[in-house]
């Protein structure tokens, strides 16, 4: 295997400016926002755009076989252990940064429109910029610890933004849930870091990529990888830690688009891509990743089938799509995972923003049963939503097709790459295909229920302002052509090949050839199937879904209730812990521990009182005690 970094040229660059832009933007936006609320959004947008520009600058500055490095300052140095607050910018980072800042800027712009009437919008934009800052730390960090700073930072911003409308305690609770569940993953992440520190004494990516492959036993690598993956399941909403993401829809929709679709939740995928050399050494861990990811993709897709809240559908869709990414990563095709990450960012952001546009239009109505026929009043939104739907459905030539196709083929060939995966690759690809059909189905279902038919709500929908439409259009455009561009023009595989192992780069077929087109259309069959079925059921045979639902009554209930996972966790983890906390307080702490402290005091006091009763005030008694005591002491301590 190619050892990364060893023959890469390290170039000093000032990368710190990239995350600093949104950080400063956050402060300025908040402070200025106190006086000029409207200005806050524009400042934040400008800051993120500026960051985007810096990223673009570095993107072009980055030559092949180069990595840009910015050792800002020594962060922590104890003994021989030293960590710099350092940033690195390689091809992987470049892609991630472009996505983060690019889509981030678009969503900022969108938010200007979306949040135009919110009282606390300076706070919102400050948080949003802060999120960008953290996310940039995450992707730019040159070592695990800086990455971890971003990792936790995005968690915090996610928490703050989910609970943005904190007057609703349920929203605040959703934020807390997100943070806590993320923290569970983070704890595993920490342990993984400790193992790395213990064994290698460094957290630096480049150093690790040099040191690790030679010196690591498979067991250790597996342990670290699994721990890191647990961290990733938290952040990227995989089973078993995916429960927070649907609840996270409590936040404003741009937040869902940016954080819970395009960027933050993909951090886990990025982590795996970044530490590919580690995961490569742990085939067993890869198997675990694949299994979990496949299961997640399937489970989330099934849940999404029956959701009526438009954002919930998209949320479960995100979980499912993240599963796809991890499938790719687990199969060893990191670049495919990144590819899907990017395309997913395009179309899922677009979907979310579209749903936001709809919600905005329907006065914060999120239930699709109260929508319908909206494409007449909101043509732009509808069009972009449909494009993204087709993209996520994986229909050629939309962006989703390419990445999904690569995922499936990577799975099929996974066995060759990783012997542990040998018997599993193909079944996994079947599962993924099935999940893809479901994906196409439920997304189309949501689009159909929202935009087709007749309006079933009571509001007066209208098209959104231009600030919201422009990002929609841009993203839809990316969803439309992004795949072709990345596959062809940029050749993401080749590009990422400068930073991570990508396997054999195929330059063979031209995309323009007829066979390719035919092949591509054929391979789009799951998309067509799902889209077609959904269109049929939700436009032509509207009574059938109800019948199916009734026919599979209990199963539908299970799906509608998300497999009762929340309830399960509540019953086996949260409530027992709460009960234990109360027990420890009342039972252990107050009764036993404090009881024994006070009990000791009481024993002392009571024995004092007992001894005190000898002071009867009676002369005879005193004489008696004196006499007996004297003889006792003389006999037992002196004479005998």
């Amino acid at each position, binding site marked *: 295997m190619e050892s990364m970094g060893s023959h890469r040229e390290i170039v000093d660059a000032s990368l710190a400016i990239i995350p600093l832009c949104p950080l400063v933007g956050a402060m300025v936006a908040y402070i200025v926002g106190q006086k000029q609320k409207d200005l806050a959004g524009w400042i934040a947008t400008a800051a993120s755009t500026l960051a985007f520009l810096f990223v673009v600058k570095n993107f072009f500055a980055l030559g092949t076989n180069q990595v840009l490095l910015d050792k800002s300052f020594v962060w922590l140095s104890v003994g021989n252990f030293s960590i710099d607050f350092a940033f690195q910018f390689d091809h992987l980072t470049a892609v991630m940064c472009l996505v983060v800042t690019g889509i981030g800027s678009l969503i900022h712009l969108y938010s200007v429109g979306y949040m135009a009437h919110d009282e606390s919008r300076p706070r919102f934009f400050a948080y949003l910029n802060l999120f960008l800052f953290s996310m940039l730390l995450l992707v730019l960090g040159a070592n695990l610890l800086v990455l971890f700073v971003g990792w936790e930072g995005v968690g915090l911003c996610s928490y703050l933004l989910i609970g943005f409308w904190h007057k609703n305690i349920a929203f605040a609770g959703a934020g807390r849930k997100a943070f806590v569940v993320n923290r569970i993953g983070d704890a595993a992440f920490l342990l993984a870091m400790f193992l790395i520190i213990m064994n290698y004494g460094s957290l630096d990516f480049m150093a690790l990529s040099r040191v690790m492959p030679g010196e690591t036993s498979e067991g250790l690598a597996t342990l670290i990888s699994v721990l890191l993956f647990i961290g990733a399941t938290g952040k990227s909403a995989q089973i078993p830690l995916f429960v927070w993401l649907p609840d996270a829809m409590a936040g404003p929709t741009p937040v869902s688009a940016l954080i819970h679709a395009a960027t933050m939740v993909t951090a886990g995928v990025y982590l795996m891509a970044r530490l590919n050399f580690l995961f490569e050494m742990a085939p067993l861990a890869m198997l675990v990743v694949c299994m979990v990811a496949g299961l997640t993709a399937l489970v989330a897709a099934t849940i999404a089938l029956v959701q009526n809240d438009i954002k919930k559908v998209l949320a479960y869709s995100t979980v499912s799509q993240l599963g796809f990414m991890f499938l790719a990563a687990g199969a060893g095709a990191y670049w495919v995972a990144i590819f899907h990450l990017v395309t997913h960012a395009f179309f899922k952001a677009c979907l979310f923003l579209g749903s936001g546009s709809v919600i905005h239009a329907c006065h914060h109505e999120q239930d699709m049963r109260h929508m319908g026929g909206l494409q007449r009043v909101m043509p732009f939104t509808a069009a972009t939503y449909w494009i993204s739907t087709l993209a996520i459905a994986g229909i050629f030539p939309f962006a989703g097709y390419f990445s999904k196709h690569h995922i499936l083929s990577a799975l099929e060939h996974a066995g060759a790459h990783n012997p542990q995966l040998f018997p599993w690759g193909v079944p996994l690809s079947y599962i993924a295909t099935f999940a893809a059909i479901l994906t196409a189905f439920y997304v189309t279902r949501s689009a159909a229920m929202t935009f087709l038919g007749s309006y079933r709500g009571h509001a007066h929908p209208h098209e959104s302002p231009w600030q919201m439409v422009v990002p929609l259009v841009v993203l839809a455009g990316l969803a439309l052509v992004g795949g072709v561009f990345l596959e062809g023009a940029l050749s993401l595989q080749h590009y990422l090949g400068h930073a991570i192992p990508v396997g054999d780069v195929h330059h063979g077929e031209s995309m323009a050839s007829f066979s390719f087109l035919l092949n591509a259309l054929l391979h789009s069959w799951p998309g067509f199937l799902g889209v077609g079925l959904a269109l049929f059921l939700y436009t032509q045979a509207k009574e059938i879904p109800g019948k199916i639902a009734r026919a599979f009554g209990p199963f539908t209930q299970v799906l509608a209730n998300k497999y009762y996972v929340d309830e399960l966790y509540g019953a086996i983890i949260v409530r027992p812990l709460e009960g234990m906390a109360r027990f420890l307080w009342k039972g252990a702490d107050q009764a036993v521990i404090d009881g024994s402290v006070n009990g000791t005091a009481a024993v002392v006091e009571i024995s*004092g009182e007992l001894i005190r009763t000898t002071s009867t005030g009676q002369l005879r008694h*005193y004489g008696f005690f004196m006499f007996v*005591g*004297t003889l006792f*002491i*003389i006999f037992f301590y*002196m004479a005998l």
Partner: protein
Amino acid sequence: MEIISLADLYSISPLLFLTLGAFGILIVDVFSKESWLRASYTSIFILAALSFAFQLADVAAPGKTAFWDAIYVDSFSIYFQVLILVGALLTVMLSHGRIAQEGVRSLGEFYALFLMSTIGAIIFVSAAEMVTLFLGLEIMSMALYCMCGSAVHSKDSAESALKYFFLGSFSSAFMLFGIALMYGVSGTLSLAESAAVLSSSNSGLVPIAVGFVLIGFVFKIGAVPLHFWAPDVYQGAPTTVTAYMACVVKAAAVGAALRVLWTSFGSDTLFGIWASAVWIIAALTMVVGNLVALRQRSLKRMLAYSSIAHAGYIMVAFLAPHQGGGSAVLFYIAVYTAMTLGAFGVVLAVASPHSSEPDADDIHRFQRLGYRNPVLAGCMTLFLLSLAGLPPGLAGLLGKFYVFNAAVQANYVGLAIIGVLCSAVSCYYYLRVIVAMYFIPKEESDSDSLAPLAPVSLPFAGVIGICAVAVVTLGLFPSILHDGAQFVIENF
């Protein structure tokens, strides 16, 4: 043959002055009824005695005796003479104006007895042979019995006199029995001479003799199991007398006990005999004194148990004759005198002037003292913390430092641990007084405790001040006293 030499007389000059004062005041009493006159008259004689006691340091020498080997004229006896006289002086200052309020009517007799008791105490610590020692003890006690009952119309005072008298006589008989056995074994009553005989004797009487003599001291020191008199008597007696008992009498008893135990019974074999007994007595004393004090409401009774407990600490140091125990005792008893006298002084100031009231010195009388009289309360806090051994009561802490340090060095670690645990327990009841003085808000306090305090007279304030200064000074610069104590012990 000259029966009494001038040198002999010089060596008891403090006693002569005190005797002169004791008889003189009875005459003064006939002619004047002024309270202050008698108090200051007494003070003058004590001061004179004190100055001569200091003078005696010039003639003192290790093992030097006077009056046919009846009394020692050594630095040890001078140290205790000074201590006793200073304690007596402070008590007299404390008594001025207060003693009459406490129901003592015959002031002339009272001060005469006071001086005679002091005489007894000095004889007690200076005695070089057992009969003198016993006489000293009896003079001190006899006068003290009467002083306890001097509030003739107070039931408590009479009761305390009764108990003190009977239990005191009872224990004197025990001690006398021990002296008789000592005499029986050694054929001599001299402390120094008997030491040699006793240590070489293998008589079965020796442990019993040692035991009974020890018991006599244990009673006066107020240690378990002969402590029962202390709380009752301390509580019932007029507070001035209580202060005197707690400080001067205890100091004298400790001095005499140390002298006898380390002189007559100082050999290794004899030490082996009494060490285990003193061990158990000290342990029991610390435990009982501290535990029983926990729930006392009467301050005087509480301080009585506290003084029992401190007797226990002091006895711990008895066990370390060669490890600095002697200087520890000397330092501790001086510090103890200062802080206990101070504490009793404050009790005297705060307790109801009508001592016949059942709760005259109840702890609730101290409520909000910190706001009613901050200075007094501050001093009390200092004394209490010092008794508890908590900084800023550094003197008490250093006392414990010396004592337990000596104990640990002498390998009595177990006893030291018992001691410190008890000392920790003791914090509770000392701090409880601080709770009353500071922590009770106005609305929760008993209304009658907010009654204004009687004005504090100048000598009275002086006593409190001197004690406070002593506690602070000895805490910061313990060497002032401890070097002296070390010198005394080296010239023992």
